[in-house]
């Protein structure tokens, strides 16, 4: 039947590709807008395991106490927040094995605690111990 095939028009079956880039751009812009780049940032520490008690000689421990009003006591001396970093740095230089034991009151604010921890981190004190409040 030659007539049938001859009569049918040859259709162009290609998908139009001209707008592909536009569609892709639109999707791209959507993902650009929805992507949140803000990474979680914070001060990381590792808590001591439960029941883990290690004997540490007294000379390797530095006590840092924070009371309910946010006052800081570092080895029996009251210090200001901004003095914590140089003092700890100095102590670390004298004794590299120094452990800073941070103890807070139950009513100390979290911000104060983070401030102090921040100072300790700035002094490169990596051995920080979090003691239970009394």
């Amino acid at each position, binding site marked *: 039947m030659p007539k049938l095939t001859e009569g049918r028009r040859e259709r162009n079956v290609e998908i139009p590709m001209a707008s592909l880039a536009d569609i892709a751009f639109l999707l791209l812009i959507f993902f650009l807008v929805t992507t949140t780049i803000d990474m979680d940032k914070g001060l990381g*520490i*590792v808590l001591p395991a439960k029941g883990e008690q290690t004997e540490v000689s007294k000379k390797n421990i530095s006590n840092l106490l924070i009371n309910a009003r946010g006052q800081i006591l570092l080895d029996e001396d009251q210090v200001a927040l901004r003095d914590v970093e140089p003092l700890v740095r100095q102590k670390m230089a004298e004794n590299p094995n120094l452990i800073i034991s941070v103890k807070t009151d139950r009513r100390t604010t979290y911000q104060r605690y983070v401030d102090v921890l921040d100072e300790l981190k700035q002094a490169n004190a990596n051995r920080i111990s979090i003691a239970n409040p009394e």
Partner: protein
Amino acid sequence: MKFKRKEESSGDIPTSSLPDIIFMLLIFFMVSTVLKEYQGLSVILPEAEKIEKLETKRHVTYVWIAKDGTVSIDDKLMEMDNVRHIMYEKRVNDPQITVSLRADKGSNMGLITDFHQELREADALKINYSSRTEA
């Protein structure tokens, strides 16, 4: 006029590979987008300077502690005493788990210490105090 014999180059940028480039960018953003977002509690994070990025988002559990002592893990409110069970389960499923603590800057350390104790009970010891840079 010898100068006129200069070849006429067409000034068009070849756009045939444009969709490929766009698709590649698209795929990059699709892969890097994290759509899993938690609602959380309304807290004001404390400020700190020496903050570090969390290495990965995959092994992180977010915990919110509001000023009034409300605790929320994965958008579920819970009592402080139950934290150890949830965290233990999570730690068994993923031993590398890190807890990102988003506590209000005005909350008492008593709350935070209780939370520390719960984490120690659950043996989930890696903790990150989520904070923001000072403005």
